[in-house]
């Protein structure tokens, strides 16, 4: 019973999300602002790498934006 409800809620969520997404957005000629460097999700990849590495080595969490990081004996 609960699985059916979860499936229903999940289906409504996914359908709602997709239909909402299809009405959002811009036309191709309206992308001048979105195309700017500072509007990229990761506008400074090197700084993001550095920060991920610092926080990975000092906290119990990592990743989220990208992969969990690692490759370091610091944690």
């Amino acid at each position, binding site marked *: 019973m609960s699985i059916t409800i979860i499936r229903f809620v999940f289906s409504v969520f996914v359908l709602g*999300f997709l239909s909402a*997404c*299809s009405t*959002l*957005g*811009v*036309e*191709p000629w*309206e*992308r*001048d*602002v*979105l195309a*700017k460097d*500072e*509007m*990229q*999700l990761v*506008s*400074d*990849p*090197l*700084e993001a*790498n*550095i920060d991920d*590495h*610092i*926080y990975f080595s*000092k*906290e*119990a*969490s*990592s*990743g*989220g*934006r*990208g*992969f*969990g990081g*690692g*490759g*370091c*004996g610091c*944690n």
Partner: protein
Amino acid sequence: MAVDSAAADVVATRSGREFNSVTKSNKKSVATSLAAATCALLGTAGTNPVHAQEEPRWEFDTSLLYYGENDDRVQDISLNILARRSFVDDRLLTLGLTVDSLTGATPVGAAPMGVAQTFTRPSGNSVFSAPANITPLDDTFWDTRYAVSAGWQQPLGRLFRGSAGVSFSNEYDYTHIGANLGLTRDFNQRNTTVSLGVAFAQDDIDPISGSPTPLSPMLDLGDVSNRRGTESKDVVDVLFGVTQVINQNLLVQLNYSFSDASGYLNDPYRVLSLVDPISGDTLARTPAPGTEGPSHEFRFESRPDSRAKHSLFGQAKYFMHGKVLDLSYRYMTDDWDVDSHTIDAKLKFPLANDRYLEPHIRYYTQTEADFYRASLSAGEPLPLYASPDYRLGDFDALTAGIKYGWRTDSGHDLSMRLEYYMQDGEVPGNQLIGNQLQRDMYPGLDAIIFNFSYRFGIGR
């Protein structure tokens, strides 16, 4: 070069095909159709034909970082280079290099005491003493870390984009090798992008003198009876994300990621104090006659050999009359009982003459792992798992900083960033025994982060 030229031709043809399909009144030529079909089979169609007009070029992001902790703890000077070469047809090669030079002192894990304590160094060749009433630190921490990475991205057909990468890093006692694959697909006139990524890593840990048997005692100089060989761990990461353009000024992203680590997850140098169940003081011990060794009873930590983490990450980029707000939130939970929340905000203010200021604030909070222990009580059987690592404790962290950037006359970007990072945590009250209630059992952390970045391109 020949490949690039061919790809440029394909993209130009592709561009022609798209134009033809939009203006249906135009008849497609046989040659165009054949070229388009070939292009589709090769799966090399460009999403942005403008790139066909550009020469291949390199872009370099370089950065020199200083990270320094209070009380002469960890100091890191790090050189980072990220090189990107763009090819025609929207293909991109990325190469990364990092060199870290680490020095300083790091907490041993043992509890502070009212008297000085002596420890055997990880090498097993000498001892060091920690003064009374402060968190014991091992001041011989030093290492040089080299990390390299390479990645490749390219369109796969009109709406898909694929990526592949490899990474390698090496330290004195640690070697990492990893690989990753990614795929994205655009929907709704490229306003929605769905991405899927997977990464594998295999790390080898070769602690100086061998890894200690978990929960075994720290021994006298020269006694390696509790030492094992090298260890390894495997990490698999999976990431699923959706990026959505909301309007001309707002872009949002939502990611779910899963990470599974298995193998040796201990810190081979960290020990717990074995304490009297009434006084909370660490039990004293006497080194064997004629040798030196620990003054008290210490046990090497023991963590589970697997860890599964789930993260939800949301980010928004919002353009507000020239200013850009970058806001993100992450929730993480794992089967070690660590739950964490991270909120991060940056606001970029443009100034005159291609200059900008960007204040940054980040707040982080986590709960302790279920096997986090400030010390081990001699009055109880040893638990299966125990770690005194403050990074697995209950703490909050705050980062506050500012970045100032400018563009040179030759079009190069420079920036300077200064940040302050602090951690403040506490040991759960039910873990404190006797005299420990009067001692500072949780080593807080204050650190300064300064980096200087320089971005330039060549070959345009």
